[in-house]
């Protein structure tokens, strides 16, 4: 609102340029951290999209993430199917799975949605660890190699992998942000706030929710592609409850109802984890305290806290032009009122 369209575009371009420049200016180690944040970021994004737009918490997003990873692993290591078929099939199957499970879970609300997704998520996990002839059980599948794109091996060059992933990461964010702003997104918001009213107005409530669920699964499965390619392996842990809960925690830490919060939370969690564990063995304690502080003092997560800081700063420097109450916390969200 305070920004004109031109300065907004300028900000986006500059930050994009900075992100693209990372492989040339930063160390391999830093690039690796960014890659990691991005694929887990996509997983968290899918969870936060559901939480923000449908108002439900899913504990099976990692299943979609893992399914695309597993399909890549199996097709590439067992049948030597060349890129780009495995990731496309992987994403396709994950979306199909979402279409099936969506039928089961989409009518549930609140805690029942949570429980249903938990059960389905654990089902996928059990399948991954028990169906050993296909998934190799707990040992998992290794030897997945990242593809060659435009003649550059993303397996050998971390920078190339980073750029490859960054492209899809930005596309996913754009996709979700556009979805939120579209009539579809507004309808979802209406359903979240008052389902009965939307139903009365003649909107196909269940269908809309169902589609949102599938979109979220689609985003998570893209994350899974990069996970499998970057780590070069997949095992049941990637679809386990731990992964699901960690995703939820990153969402809460960053601010679960916003896209920006999802990315921020993942970045904080994953980077802190790495940095702290190098310093002390008691790093989980520090993380725990951090969560406590977040939930007590910034219930809207780090993104919410940042937003509050920024608002305070803006109102002080720009005078009375402080934003009005009804503005969403989401930096990607443009108020349409």
């Amino acid at each position, binding site marked *: 609102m305070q920004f004109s369209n031109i300065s907004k575009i300028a900000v986006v371009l500059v930050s994009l340029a900075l992100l693209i420049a990372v492989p040339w200016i930063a160390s391999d180690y830093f690039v690796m951290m960014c890659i990691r944040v991005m694929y887990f970021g996509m997983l968290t994004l899918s969870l936060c999209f559901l939480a923000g737009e449908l108002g439900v918490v899913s504990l099976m997003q990692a299943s979609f993430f893992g399914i695309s990873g597993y399909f890549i692993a199996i097709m590439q290591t067992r049948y030597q199917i060349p890129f780009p078929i495995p990731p496309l099939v992987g994403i396709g199957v994950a979306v199909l799975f979402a279409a099936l499970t969506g039928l089961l879970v989409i009518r549930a609300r609140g805690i029942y949605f949570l429980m249903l997704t938990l059960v389905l998520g654990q089902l996928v996990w059990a399948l991954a*660890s028990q169906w050993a002839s296909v998934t190799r059980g707990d040992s*998992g599948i290794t030897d997945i190699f990242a593809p060659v794109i435009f003649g550059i091996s993303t397996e050998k060059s971390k920078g190339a992998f980073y750029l490859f992933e960054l492209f899809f990461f930005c596309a996913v964010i754009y996709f979700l942000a556009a979805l939120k702003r579209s009539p579809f997104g507004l309808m979802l918001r209406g359903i979240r706030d008052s389902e009965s009213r939307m139903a009365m107005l003649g909107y196909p409530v269940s269908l809309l929710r169902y589609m949102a669920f599938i979109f979220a699964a689609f985003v998570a499965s893209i994350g899974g592609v990069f996970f499998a390619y970057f780590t070069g392996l997949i095992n049941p*842990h990637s679809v386990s409850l731990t992964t699901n809960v960690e995703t939820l925690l990153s969402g809460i830490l960053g601010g679960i109802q916003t896209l920006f919060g999802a990315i921020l939370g993942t970045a904080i969690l994953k980077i802190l984890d790495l940095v702290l564990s190098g310093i002390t*063995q008691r*790093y989980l304690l520090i993380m725990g305290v951090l969560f406590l502080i977040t939930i007590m003092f910034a219930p809207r997560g780090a993104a919410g806290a940042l937003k509050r800081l920024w608002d305070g700063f803006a109102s002080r420097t720009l005078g009375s032009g402080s934003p009005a109450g009804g503005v969403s916390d989401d930096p990607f969200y443009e108020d349409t009122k």
Partner: protein
Amino acid sequence: MKRKSWIIAITVILFFIGAIAGNAMALDEIRIGTIGPTTGWATIFGQGCLDGIKLALGEYNNEFNGIPIKVFSEDTKADVEVMRTKLDSLKNRDKVHLIIGPSLGHEGMAAVDWGARNPEVPMLIGYSAPEDITMRKATNSVIRPGWTGAQVIFNFGQYSAKDLGYKKVIIVGQDYSYPWDQAAGFIRGFLENGGEKVERIWHPVEAVDFSSIMAKLIAMSKEYDAVLNNSGGAQVVAFFKQWKQFGLDKVYPQILGQANVPIVSMLSELGDSAMGVYSSLHYYDGNPSGANKKFRESFKKKYGTYPDVIAVQGYDAVHVAFKAMKAINGQVDDSKKFIAALRQVKMSADESPRGPFYFDKFANPVQNIYIKKVVKKEGRLMNEAVKTYTEVSQFGPYADMADKYMAAPATTRDYPPGDKASYFMEIEKHFGKDYVEKLKKNNGWVD
């Protein structure tokens, strides 16, 4: 002229400083990274290994020929994605010369995959036991001074069939890949040496209520001779307790155990109910050798408890590394040389608490396997060796047909088959008719 000589002098001095600095860089310190789960459910495996590593380094005063050794410890949380990231950290951030770890099965598989992509970092595997780390996936830079799941239990199957004289055995175990491998190794040893049938019962990994299984075992007792417990941790404790409660100790002889069942930390939990349990491993705590006594006493002094086989793994890894460093005069910067030296290491009975061992061409130890029995000695429960099989490789009795062994299908929860007829059909298919003939002629394996 004057200026020219000045320039030369300065160049020479700079060159020297550079050379010295370069040298100083090389011999500054030896950096060792350790990796393993030190938080979460698997802490016992990661921490045990780490304790062993620290104990061994302490014996060398944390230095090698006056060069200090710096240890970087990383936690995997038993998650392979985290582990890969930490391995990258150790390599890129800390620039370690050697990595010791990991300790869990799936971690080991992921580590060897990482090793294949980063062949310039030597890695010593800790407690991880999947055979593929040093078999189908073996890579030059990954060396395992440990064990494979099947390696330690082949002979136990043989012992159960020949020495204990059992014909039909039930295996009850947790439903995941490590127990599957244990069962597979046992079945091979058992059926090829006169055993007739092995029935596998799998229960969920976290199960603690075995009442339905106990009822089943009672019903099966008419046909079967013995039960082998193939679980770990809390499940073993619960199983032993319910075994007594349901009165199965009156129906069957004492439980047989997979390799991990009667390890030191378990014995204190199981108490007298573990008396007489047979199992097999490449280490036993009652080993009277000097190396083992020294290891146990110094471990007890440092940490207050007696060590497990898990700590032996970390302890041995450090000693293997030091032996290799001695052989190459501490040139750990030359990773090719270092890796080659590591693979050459031969440990004697005076150097390792487990006894002598050396590496096969896949870098897995060829070592003694002990059939052990839990006894009470000086008021404490202890494992005593009742039989020792020397120089057992990871291929066990198939050492001279390793290729065929590796080409055979991978172990699953019900492969290889548990009854004699279909098992022999399988081995005839994969190991050839001659092998089956030989087995029949020798009435099993030749010791």
